[in-house]
């Protein structure tokens, strides 16, 4: 069936089977490889994207469910003159190591900083609960995102 999605402002239309997952559409049809596939069970957040402004796990969604919606991937967070505030801070503070979890933390970190009010450590930790990092120990990630979100 024909699936039409808008990803990072670009329209994509492709003839695909209804069983295609959203993450596979993003990676294989749109060619945006920054969205990763980790656990495939909704636990690790490596596949996180924004769907009509809300964070979702694209490994738990059929591409056809997202028909007509606006999707932002980690590539779409970047602004004209480079990385956005959260991405820049994560990079400058060396909060990440291998970077496999970068899509998850960048997407959810940006969502928290733009949507949550009265930011504190607890709120940030709750927000980040759906993203797993196997390298870093979380401490710098939490501090970095809290700092950016407080300054928003």
């Amino acid at each position, binding site marked *: 069936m024909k699936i039409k999605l808008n990803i990072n402002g670009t329209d994509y239309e492709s003839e695909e089977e*209804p*069983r295609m997952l959203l993450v596979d559409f993003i990676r294989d049809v749109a060619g945006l490889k920054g969205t990763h596939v980790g656990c*495939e069970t*909704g636990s690790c957040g490596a596949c996180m994207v924004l769907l009509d402004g809300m964070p979702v796990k694209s490994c*738990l969604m059929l591409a*056809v469910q997202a028909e007509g919606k606006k999707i932002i991937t980690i590539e779409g967070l970047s602004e004209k003159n480079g990385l956005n505030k959260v991405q820049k801070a994560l990079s400058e503070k060396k909060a990440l190591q291998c970077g496999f979890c970068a899509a998850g933390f960048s997407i*959810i970190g940006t969502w928290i900083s733009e949507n949550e009010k009265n930011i504190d450590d607890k709120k940030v930790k709750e927000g980040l*609960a*759906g993203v797993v990092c196997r390298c870093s120990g979380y401490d710098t990630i939490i501090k970095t995102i809290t700092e950016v979100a407080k300054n928003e």
Partner: protein
Amino acid sequence: MKVPPDFKYLRTYTLDEYYEKANQLSLPLIISGGTVAVLMLKNRIIRPEAVIDISQIPELNMLKIDKDDVFIGANTKLYKLKNVLPNDSASELIVKSASTIGDIAIRSMGSVGGNVCLGDPSNDLPVALTAIDAQAVIGKKDGITYTPITSFYIKPFKTILNKGEILLGVNYKMLNGYRTSYKKHFINFLDHYVGIVAAIAKIEENTIKDFRMAMAGEAVGKPVKFDLSEFSKVDEIKTIKERLFDYVNTIHVENNRFGTANYKKKVLYTLISRAIDEVLKF
């Protein structure tokens, strides 16, 4: 890479369209948010002939408040509950329960209907809804029926919904001036909860006027309900706790990969105790 089996995908825009399609097919699967349905498809636990997407049916996306009556449409996303429900105590208990579900991405995809209809004893909303005596509003081709949530579950993963039927939403009466408590204990593998306890109580002039509690979780199975009528001659918290502990001792709890029966019962005693201390302290 886990890939679902092949299926037909049918998007429905009206309830009539849903009833027509669901009654024609031998093995359809409803999908709302898909957080569980897609997982079941990927793991090939189910191989439906067709997946019926109900997310665009307007009646299932409604919230209706009529005097003290609240109806939450089945497609309502879990993250929305805290912003749209009224300020009464029954709604507060639902919001407490919903806010413990998964993480923000799961709550922005997952729906009330998906949480209520799976019948997994680890699901949160059924426990809160049982405690406040909510009803399941069930739609079928020839009309609507209202069933107490307590009668909606037959056993774990089995509800009373028949082929061609659909959960339209849940319905409950607002409660004012109550205290609420929601407790659960997570077992850190396979996303299972050993026990979940929801409690709501009204205390006036040092007397318990109303007390309702529900529990579920892997140790308990489908949600069970208690209310003050079972403690008619009892106004001592200690006795209420003892009666609930006695109940826990009568249920058959299995030794399995989630823990020993003894451990699971101790978890339940603790959750009950903490919830009671929160809602019944004078």
